[in-house]
């Protein structure tokens, strides 16, 4: 099967509508960023406390907010995207007393939505060793013979069971199926423990200093990486190729950040990883196109630069569509079914693959042509505005082919 056999689309002839589209998208993103006062940073970057809670039966978000407000907590409560609908995230941005905030959230939720403990042990909180400690004496008292090793294994098995059931045991009778739980042991567990109707499945507290630091470091690392790529491509091709590739990648990143802002999505550390992935992906795509242009420059010296680039894009079209299609497929699968932790990550990937593929053709390649035309104008006395003053009078006009070669010389 072959989809694109000897195609000859005039991509660069239609570059303006696409460049304008890019500008509109970039502008929309930048305006959104400006209106919202910068990207919506996750707590990794701005500092704060985030508590993720799973409920046996999820209360309305408003009620959770009200319960927290009653404890003077100004928290942002949200349903976690792409997850089973019993998980909510609670986000406190207060700089002060972050440590206390975490504990207060946990306590006030337990008070409002949890079950009274009546002196029993909450099996949906704490770890295996705490459970084992709680059961040890009770089992001995009930004269159920269990060695230390058996007890530890038992507690670990129960914790594994909880882990595989979204962190929440709904009913103690469920435990009958756990390895090592005999009816007499289950009886002791029932005497000693109860399952609360909510469980804290994740908490993050990040101090504002560390957040700012992370942000600075991540941005710096990416800028240095872009610089490194520019130098390498300049070395392998021409400096304008390096500049074009970096501008294209920058364009992709800005548009993706803009889309994050438009869709009101958070930038977390994982999203930064996705942005790095998209930078790598877009760069890869651009280099493949450039490589073909370089190769064609060797064998098709008589053709103009624009038709040559057009032909190069057409020659790599089949590969571009296939690769992008295939990777997009994986990214889409991750976006749709990958769960809430990976949601922002997958969103960035999907945006990045689409924008990254398109920018190689409609951003990076036109830059080469613009630069080429600019040089040519300069060398032709009197035609280009830039040439008038700088061009010494009497320099012989260079032959056309050579100028072309000069704009995109092969090393």
């Amino acid at each position, binding site marked *: 099967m072959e989809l694109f056999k000897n195609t000859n689309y005039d991509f660069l002839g239609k570059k303006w509508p696409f460049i304008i589209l890019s500008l509109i998208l970039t502008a929309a993103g930048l305006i959104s960023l400006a209106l919202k006062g910068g990207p919506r940073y996750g707590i990794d970057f701005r500092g704060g406390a985030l508590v993720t809670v799973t409920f046996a039966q999820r209360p309305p978000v408003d009620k959770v907010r009200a319960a927290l407000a009653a404890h003077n907590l100004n928290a942002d409560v949200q349903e976690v995207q792409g997850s089973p609908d019993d998980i909510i995230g609670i986000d406190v941005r207060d700089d002060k007393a972050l440590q206390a905030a975490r504990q207060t959230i946990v306590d006030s939720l337990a008070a409002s939505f949890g079950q009274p403990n009546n002196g029993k042990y909450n099996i949906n909180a704490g770890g295996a060793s705490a459970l084992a400690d709680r059961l040890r004496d009770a089992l001995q008292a009930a004269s159920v013979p269990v060695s230390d090793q058996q007890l530890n294994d038992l507690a670990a098995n129960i914790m594994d069971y909880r882990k595989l059931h979204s962190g929440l045991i709904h009913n103690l009778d469920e435990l009958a199926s756990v390895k090592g739980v005999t009816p007499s042991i289950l009886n002791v567990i029932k005497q000693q423990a109860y399952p609360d109707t909510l469980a804290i*499945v994740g908490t993050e507290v990040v101090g504002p200093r560390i957040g700012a630091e992370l942000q600075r470091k991540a941005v710096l690392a990416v800028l240095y*990486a872009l610089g490194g790529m520019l130098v390498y491509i300049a070395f392998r091709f021409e400096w304008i190729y390096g500049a074009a590739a970096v501008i294209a990648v920058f364009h992709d990143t800005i548009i993706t950040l803009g889309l994050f802002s438009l869709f009101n999505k958070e930038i977390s550390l994982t999203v930064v990883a996705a942005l790095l992935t998209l930078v790598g*992906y877009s760069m890869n795509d651009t280099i493949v196109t450039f490589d073909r242009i370089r190769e064609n420059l060797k064998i098709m010296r008589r053709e103009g630069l624009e038709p040559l680039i057009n032909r190069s894009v057409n020659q790599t079209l089949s590969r571009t569509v296939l690769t992008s299609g295939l990777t997009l497929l994986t990214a889409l699968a991750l976006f749709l079914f990958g769960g809430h932790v990976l949601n922002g990550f997958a969103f960035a990937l999907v945006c990045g693959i689409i924008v990254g593929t398109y920018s190689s053709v409609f951003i990076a390649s036109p830059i080469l042509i613009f630069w080429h035309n600019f040089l040519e104008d300069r060398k032709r006395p009197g035609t280009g505005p830039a040439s008038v003053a700088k061009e010494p009078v009497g320099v012989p006009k260079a032959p056309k082919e050579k100028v072309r070669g000069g704009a995109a010389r092969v090393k």
Partner: protein
Amino acid sequence: MTRNIKIKAAVIVAVILVCIYGIIGIPKSKDELVANWKKNIHLGLDLSGGTQLVMQVQLQDAFKAFADTSMDRLKEEFKKDNIAFGAMDRNDPGRLEDADKIEIDIKGVTGAQTGTFRSTIADQFSEWVLTPVNVTDYKLTLKPTEALKLKHDTMTQTMATIERKINGLGLAESSVQPTGRSDAEAELLVQLPGVDDPAHVKQLLQTQAVLEWDEVKDGPFTTREEGLTKHGGVLPLNTKLVPTVMRGGQQSWYLVSRSPIVRGTDIRDASAAQDQSVGRWETNFVLTQEAARRFERYTEANIGNRAAIVVDGQVISAPTIQSRISDTGRITGAANQEEAADLSLNLRAGSLPAGVVYEEERTVGPSLGADSIREGFRAGIAGLLAVVVWMLVYYRRSAINATLALILNAIILVAALSYFDATLTLPGIAGVILTIGMAVDSNVLIFERIREELRAGKAVVAAVDAGFSKALATIIDTHVTTVVSCAFLFIFGTGPVKGFAVTLVIGLIANVFTAVFVSKTIFDFELSGKRQVTALSI
């Protein structure tokens, strides 16, 4: 099959075997296979669940404490040498940055005693620099070398104390280390896999050491199991098995009584001292009155038996009771001054030498980690399957090459992570995804090139050769560019960004090997058998 292909095939098989060995070892059973896999593949806290704390050690606390001790000593020495002074005080640096600005002010030293005063300080307090403020008042500042040493000691001691405390919780895989950021020397990173209750851990770190003297019932055993087996697998009532602290990687176990003879709160004071006659270092301690009565009764009845000093659930010493002890006793057998001093510190408090401020705390409940792995893994596999099916439809038999190359790439990547003892985190998986993307791309590039060459009318073998060699230039360019960017990310990035860079570089190297070398070898093998190849399934 030519000799050349045979050699290439041998190289490929060798790489596969080395990789598989790195991932699962040589398992003898299914359980062992799973165990080896778990041992070799380290999942980061964001995937496996656990707690990560970043704390800033308040070094100024240690500096203040050091100044306080110095002041006590100064007063003692001045008394001995009959030096009169008006007042002595220290300043109170509140911030970490000001820690080494600590100073002691001594006022009202009379002119006649200046000489003695100066020589006392020069001889006995060489850590300090003496500067006169006016005729009678002086200022002591800490020497920069001493300040550095004090900082270093405080950090080491804090790390050791935290380590002992979390080890006492039985958290084997936990780690305490400096965050390694150049501008944050006082920061520690504590990682606690499997802990989803950080409040408990933090409370434990803040409390003083839990110290007990327990009756030794049996031991030492070399392993916990040995102790258990000796008692038929079930411990006698009211006893527990307690490990000693790690010394040179060695650990032994004692069976001790559950209820202690003396608790930490019973100890009034402890200090290191040198034995007058033999010159050995020992640790003296003083008990409260009430505890002294209990201890006297106990020691009288148990002369010749051992008692274990247990700090935070670990035996730090198990001395033999030599004689009846009431309110003061001494523990002999320390190897040097440091050991004796450490023990006295543990007896006194065993708490952190300086306070800590938590800057970051992340807990991923194991279930959240498990959920994200499961969902992400499922989606990833579904996506990959779709990719493979599409390639099979599009490139027919040649796609089998690509699929084999992809699978091998994944195996090499996982094996490399295992050999390097690297930890796989969520950003690392992002690196894996980009690797897969570029691996698919490499194969597509090659196949499209071969098709082009075939369309240009080349014979099959020549087209395959030309396709590979032309695509190689492009593949090298894309891969090297990405490796260059990874180098920068690794040098300048923080933890997660570094993880991304590491997996990506490994993946890219594996990819050049699989997509170019392995795939070409398979093509060569397929084409070499036939005399005249006229068609290629691509």
